[in-house]
């Protein structure tokens, strides 16, 4: 038991909280009543010192928590509930943010780094901006405080001891210092490399939204109503890139790991992050309009504030437990709802009150916009983004309305849409169409003088080409026997237009020698993403659908789709152009690339160890010899599935995974993907024989054999080749005087495949032991029951079990690579614009204006 590390951690949490509060107050006093950049010196020094102390304390908290996880200190609830002894080292990092407390900590950590970055690069703005930062930090740290004040628990500490968390366990009475030997382990679905980098990226994105918000608040407060946009803009671009890429990493993780069959399911938790991102992108456009064309300042204020408020709302949705059973993956309720509401309420009210008080003073443009002003189209685009966000937030909040009405004793029976994917797709498809069109229109018109003639000249070829392209695709689809609905055709045309217009723009700018436009690159990415979504979701084809014959479908109506196919071991099933065969179970073994067939492994009492029944080799390299002991990872079973394309004869093998997991009640499955340039084949297991119940074996039937006899077993036959001395008996240590004999049998299975079986007969001090041998593929178990040395007869017992099987669902996802490629381009484009904003500023303003020395250089913290 190590109480010191937890005490250090807990003390640091308290120091971090107090220091954040002191820093907030200090910065507030330093900036109060003074113009921007002329903060009061002694308050400023105090606040800065407090912020440094806060930062150090946060680092100490992070270090302490990480030590608890990495050193397996199971006396702490956090380590016990999120980690285990056999967890691979890289996933120790994921344990850190599996719990709510750790993910809050991650968020706090990023705020510290960004705060230090602002201190360095935006010195003029330090006092008012960091006053907001420190206040946010105080609220966030309070979530992990774990202190009881006046009977109310404030926050939930990650350093709570197991005995203080599960107080009613009887073991504490007898053994107050009881420490579990192992933890309960990390959720299997989170044991994925994306879970190591997706949460930090997402929380960095969340943290970056605080920067424009803090600048906007500082601007309103200090009456610097226009100058805040310039330093905040690169941070907003960076936030858009990081959050966008973070969201898509989550989508990719869901695609690769979860068995939902797709990358996006409009789950409330996914939506909660998507909504602020949409508004963040809208605010980026608003800020850019002001920066470049002196229009849309009020919009920028409103959208920047809305983004941050929506981040807080997302936090409330996912962490308060209000989503309850409405979402598959919301956090558990830690009883922080009240605290989260205060956090949300405080900053919402503060921002709205400030904004309303200054509203009339915010300069507006006297420019008259007409259809030839690109500003109008950018503005319309931002509006579409906001309306799209509004539709998602309004629907996702249905459980909130229900809880809210329930609070007043009104029982509402409102539920989320029954089929969320169809519901959202129906509406969001049209925002996709509008965004694709406007991204092209806005971008092209932005770079030229517009009148009737120039607009027609600029757009006529693009429109023609995209319509031609659409017609071509429709014809091709028809040719290959697919259909296309009108909305899909419209989205296709719009996507092509967006792609061509932006690509043409990039090319034109490149010829004119203008630097690469980040905006156009990002827009090309968005158009590609939309096309990728159209292909992969609109034309996702369940290739395992309705492939089983009529025989078994008698008990249901014919209108339902049967998406799952039963694959009996080694029996080939035809499936939409493929011959598919399930050929066995595999495990991961230490030091062996790929997976090892379970038929080659003899399991021991230690579930993490196995003995090799044959040489384990890849190509010519032998990794383990017969009889060697291997370290295996028993949690995950990989089911080998062979696909063979009937037409081309090309074959590939997939290993979808299923994990036996008691806590989740059975099996957890993860898909396997075969990637092609034009599409993915996505397969996941939906059912296997219940691993918790041993399959029943038939009673053993004895057969009396002599060496050389052949034994007929239903569909197979076995040859009893020899009887020999056994040198190794799995699971038993041979001692001098023991007699161990094994039968050498060769069984011929399907397709001429041969299996060796060595049932063992062991004699020790006149006691008989029998070690049966199994052939998993055939569902056979052989026992060497009796030996009659006089007659030379051997009795072999044979029992059988039902054949092993898996139930599989397989989907073809066309053009999904456009989605991932588009995401990268979008991130790259936004990243480019961060750099451009910085260099564009550095060049024309060679003589920095008073005190504005530090241009935003966000890449220093990114």
């Amino acid at each position, binding site marked *: 038991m190590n109480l010191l590390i937890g005490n250090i951690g807990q003390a640091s949490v308290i120091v971090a909280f107090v220091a954040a509060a002191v820093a907030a107050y200090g910065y507030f006093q330093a900036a109060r009543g003074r113009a921007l950049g002329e903060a009061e010196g002694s308050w400023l020094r105090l606040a800065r010192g407090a912020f440094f102390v806060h930062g150090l304390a946060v680092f100490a908290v992070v270090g302490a928590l990480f030590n608890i996880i990495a050193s397996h200190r199971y006396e702490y609830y956090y380590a016990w*509930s999120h980690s285990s002894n*056999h967890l691979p080292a890289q996933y120790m990092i994921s344990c850190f943010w599996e719990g709510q407390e750790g993910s809050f900590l991650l968020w706090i950590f990023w705020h510290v780094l960004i705060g230090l970055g602002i201190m360095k690069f935006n010195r003029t703005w330090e006092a008012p901006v960091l006053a907001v930062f420190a206040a946010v930090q105080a609220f966030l740290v309070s979530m992990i405080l774990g202190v009881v004040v006046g009977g109310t628990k404030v926050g939930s500490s990650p350093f709570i001891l*197991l005995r203080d968390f*599960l107080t009613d*366990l*009887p*073991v*504490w009475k007898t*053994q107050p210092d009881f420490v*579990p*030997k*192992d933890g*309960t*382990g990390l959720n299997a679905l989170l044991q994925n490399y994306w879970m190591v980098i997706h949460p930090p990226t997402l929380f960095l994105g969340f943290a970056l939204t605080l920067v424009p918000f803090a600048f906007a608040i500082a601007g309103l407060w200090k009456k610097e109503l226009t100058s805040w946009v310039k330093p905040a803009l690169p941070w907003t671009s960076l936030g858009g890139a990081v959050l966008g890429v973070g969201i898509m990493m989550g989508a990719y993780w869901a695609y690769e790991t979860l068995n939902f069959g797709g990358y996006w399911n409009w789950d409330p938790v996914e939506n909660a992050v998507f909504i602020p991102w949409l508004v963040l992108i809208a605010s980026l456009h608003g800020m850019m309009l002001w920066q470049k064309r002196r229009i849309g300042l009020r919009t920028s204020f409103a959208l920047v504030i809305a983004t941050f408020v929506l981040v807080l709302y997302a936090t409330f949705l996912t962490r308060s437990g209000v989503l*309850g*059973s*409405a979402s598959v993956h919301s956090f*558990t309720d830690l009883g922080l709802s009240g605290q989260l509401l205060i956090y949300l309420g405080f900053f919402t009210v503060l921002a709205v009150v400030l904004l309303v008080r200054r509203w009339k003073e915010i300069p507006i443009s006297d420019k*008259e*916009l007409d259809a030839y002003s690109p500003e109008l189209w950018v503005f319309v685009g931002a*509006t579409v983004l906001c*309306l799209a966000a*509004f*539709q998602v937030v*309004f*629907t996702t909040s*249905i459980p909130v309305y229900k809880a809210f009405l329930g609070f007043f004793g009104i029982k509402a*029976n*409102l*539920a989320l*849409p*029954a*089929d969320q994917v169809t*519901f959202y797709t*129906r*509406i969001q498809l049209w925002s996709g169409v509008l965004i694709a069109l406007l991204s092209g229109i806005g971008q092209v018109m932005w770079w030229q003088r517009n009148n009737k003639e120039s607009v027609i000249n600029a757009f006529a070829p693009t429109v023609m080409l995209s319509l031609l392209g659409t017609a071509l695709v429709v014809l091709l689809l028809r040719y290959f026997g697919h259909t296309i609905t009108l909305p899909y055709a419209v989205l296709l045309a719009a996507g092509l237009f967006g792609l061509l217009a932006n690509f043409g723009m990039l090319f034109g700018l490149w010829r004119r020698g203008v630097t690469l436009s980040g905006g156009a690159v990002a827009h090309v990415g968005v158009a590609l993403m939309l096309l990728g979504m159209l292909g992969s979701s609109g034309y996702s084809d369940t290739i395992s659908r309705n492939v*089983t014959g009529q025989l*078994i*479908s008698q*008990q*249901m109506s014919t209108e*339902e*789709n*049967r*998406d*799952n196919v*039963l694959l*009996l071991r080694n029996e080939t099933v035809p499936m939409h152009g493929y011959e598919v065969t399930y050929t066995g179970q595999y495990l991961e073994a230490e030091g062996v690339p790929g997976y090892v067939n379970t038929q080659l492994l003899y399991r021991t*009492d230690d579930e993490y160890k196995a003995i090799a029944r044959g040489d384990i080799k890849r190509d010519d390299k032998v990794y383990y010899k017969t009889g060697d002991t291997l370290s295996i990872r028993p949690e995950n079973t990989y089911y080998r599935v062979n696909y063979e394309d009937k037409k081309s004869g090309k074959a590939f093998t997939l290993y979808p995974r299923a994990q036996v997991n*008691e*806590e*989740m*009640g059975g*099996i*957890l499955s993860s898909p396997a993907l075969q990637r092609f340039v034009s599409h993915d084949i996505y397969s996941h297991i*939906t*059912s296997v024989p219940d691993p918790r119940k041993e399959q029943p074996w038939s009673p053993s039937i004895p057969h009396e054999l002599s060496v050389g006899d052949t034994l007929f077993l239903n569909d197979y036959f076995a040859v009893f080749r020899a009887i020999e001395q056994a040198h190794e008996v799995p699971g038993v240590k041979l001692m001098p005087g023991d007699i161990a004999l094994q039968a050498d049998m060769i069984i011929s299975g399907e397709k001429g495949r041969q299996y060796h079986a060595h049932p063992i007969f062991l004699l020790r001090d006149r006691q008989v032991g029998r070690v049966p041998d199994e052939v998993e593929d055939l569902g056979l178990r052989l026992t060497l029951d009796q030996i009659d040395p006089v007659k030379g007869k051997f009795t072999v017992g044979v029992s059988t079990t*039902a054949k092993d*099987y898996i*139930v599989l669902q397989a989907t073809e996802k066309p053009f999904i690579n456009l989605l991932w490629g588009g995401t990268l381009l979008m991130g790259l484009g936004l990243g480019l614009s961060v750099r451009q904003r910085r260099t564009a500023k550095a060049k024309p303003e060679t003589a920095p204006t008073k005190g504005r020395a530090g241009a935003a250089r966000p890449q220093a913290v990114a």
Partner: protein
Amino acid sequence: MKKTHIFILLIIAAAVGVIISTMSGASSYVTFAEARLQAAAGNGNKVHVVGTLPRNAEKQPIGLEYDARRDPNFFAFTLVDTLNVAQRVVYHNPAPPDLDKSEQVVIVGAMKDNIFVADQILTKCPSKYVEKDLGKEAPPATAMRN
């Protein structure tokens, strides 16, 4: 100024459209009695029903029917709703793995000929996060084996 006003009016109109379409697309929580009435009236909209699985003395759920070898796409079970009405439910997919442990089950679907055909099964498992038996004779599986 006029143009801005028109623009704002358009946004409000679009927002109202979004609200109306959301409300018409929203589903509702009902009991089996209401689901039956709705189906009898010819309304095929999908609904949510909250219920629990009937269990025997050993706390094992009863009436689960799934045999992958016979039909991998047929899972039938009985759900008892909040008013204690039992109803046979069919799910044309393999049984969700965590169903037997669940405290509460939400099904989404509609009644068809006296059978509730579910498209989705959402389960809530209290045991997912807190291990209650720790330190008794059988602490978590791995801790005891040595």
